[in-house]
């Protein structure tokens, strides 16, 4: 199958998903997200082949879709209640809810585009900035230096020392981070270290644990990594398992 639409034509992963759903001629509520996972992945890998600048949001959604797909392959445990309720923890329901909201705004944006076009038919005289500046308002204060001194002291008495704020360190699990890398490597042959840690806003602890994860994967022979020159982007490659 060939896809002619380029990824940069989309505003983001949600926009791409809406397009894929429209292609399938199904409604958001009726479609199974697992069914369009393949098409979505096709776009992502094509974009990677073309060395396109893929934003991390596309990758996050890819991971979500994989999770949905893997869940759909497992037998469904029987639900306690008979009636179908929206399960907040269900990633498919969550993604669908976001798509619903996004599609409403996308439609509204199309309306506004029409209004913008209609307004293009309207012209004004040349805009001249002749308005006078706002008049300066003078407020008279009847006070002397002593009043100010007293006022400042009253203020100082009112301010209580702020309670110390405790910042809790977030525990980052090495195993969890290794699993995240494993999952990404199962999706993509090549990942950029910088992209991954950018998701954590380059938080020092996350960078360290992520780096340890890469070392761990290199040790176990699941990945290798290289840099084109010192301090260049660290590229992580998947190593195919030989059986």
């Amino acid at each position, binding site marked *: 199958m060939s896809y002619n639409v380029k990824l940069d034509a989309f505003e983001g992963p949600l926009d791409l998903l809406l397009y894929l759903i429209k292609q399938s001629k199904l409604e958001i509520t009726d479609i199974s997200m697992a069914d369009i996972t393949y098409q979505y992945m096709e776009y992502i890998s094509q974009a990677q082949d073309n060395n396109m600048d893929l934003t991390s949001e596309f990758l996050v959604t890819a991971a979500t879709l994989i999770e949905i797909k893997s869940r759909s392959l497992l037998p469904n445990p029987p639900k306690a209640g008979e009636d179908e309720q929206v399960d907040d923890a269900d990633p498919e329901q969550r993604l669908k809810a976001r798509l619903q909201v996004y599609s409403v705004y996308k439609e509204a944006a199309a309306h506004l585009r029409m209004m913008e076009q209609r307004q293009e038919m*309207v012209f004004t005289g040349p805009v001249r900035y002749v308005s006078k500046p706002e008049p300066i308002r003078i407020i008279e204060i009847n006070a002397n230096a002593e009043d100010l001194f007293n006022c400042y002291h009253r203020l100082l008495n009112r301010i209580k020392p702020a309670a110390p704020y405790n910042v809790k360190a977030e525990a980052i699990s090495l195993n969890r981070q290794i699993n995240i890398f494993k999952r990404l490597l199962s999706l993509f042959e090549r990942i950029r270290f910088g992209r991954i840690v950018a998701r954590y806003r380059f938080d020092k602890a996350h960078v360290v644990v992520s780096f340890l994860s890469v070392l761990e994967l290199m040790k176990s022979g699941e990945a290798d990594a290289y840099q084109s020159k010192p301090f260049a982007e660290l590229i992580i490659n998947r190593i195919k398992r030989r059986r």
Partner: protein
Amino acid sequence: MEVYELTAAIEAILFVNGDSVSVKQLTELFDADEQSIYAAIETLQRRYEGEDSGICLQRIADSYQMVTKPKMASYIQAFLRPVYKKQMSNAMLETLTVIAYKQPVTKAEIEDIRGVNSDKVISLLLEQGLIKAVGRLSTPGRPIQYGTTDEFLKHFGLSDLKELPKIE
């Protein structure tokens, strides 16, 4: 000041200014109450309604602007050629739509709906005066909340936010 004089003067001000003029500016300028300003504007609007007039008054929140009627577009374009009005990018339009309907809204809320980082678009919209900071949320980080401006109304030919097409 006679009523006809006030009407004529407001017309003259709207003509020379080109941009919108607020009712408040007019009350201060003419030392008149709002009612007489609105009455004068209504007189002008009725006068421009006729098919033999090429201009009309557009309301933008509490301001009025003298603009040409859409029907005149082809003549104006032929006369001024080439004249281009810039359309905004899809990313800007999408972000602006979310802000227009959900205001006051934070960057995080915008990004949650759009599913993409919106830093650059928001600063572009701020730069073009289509949105402004309207407050801060009291949650940690005190994030800035954004809302639309009169410039936004002007761009889409809206008199106020109530004229936005209904959604959902």
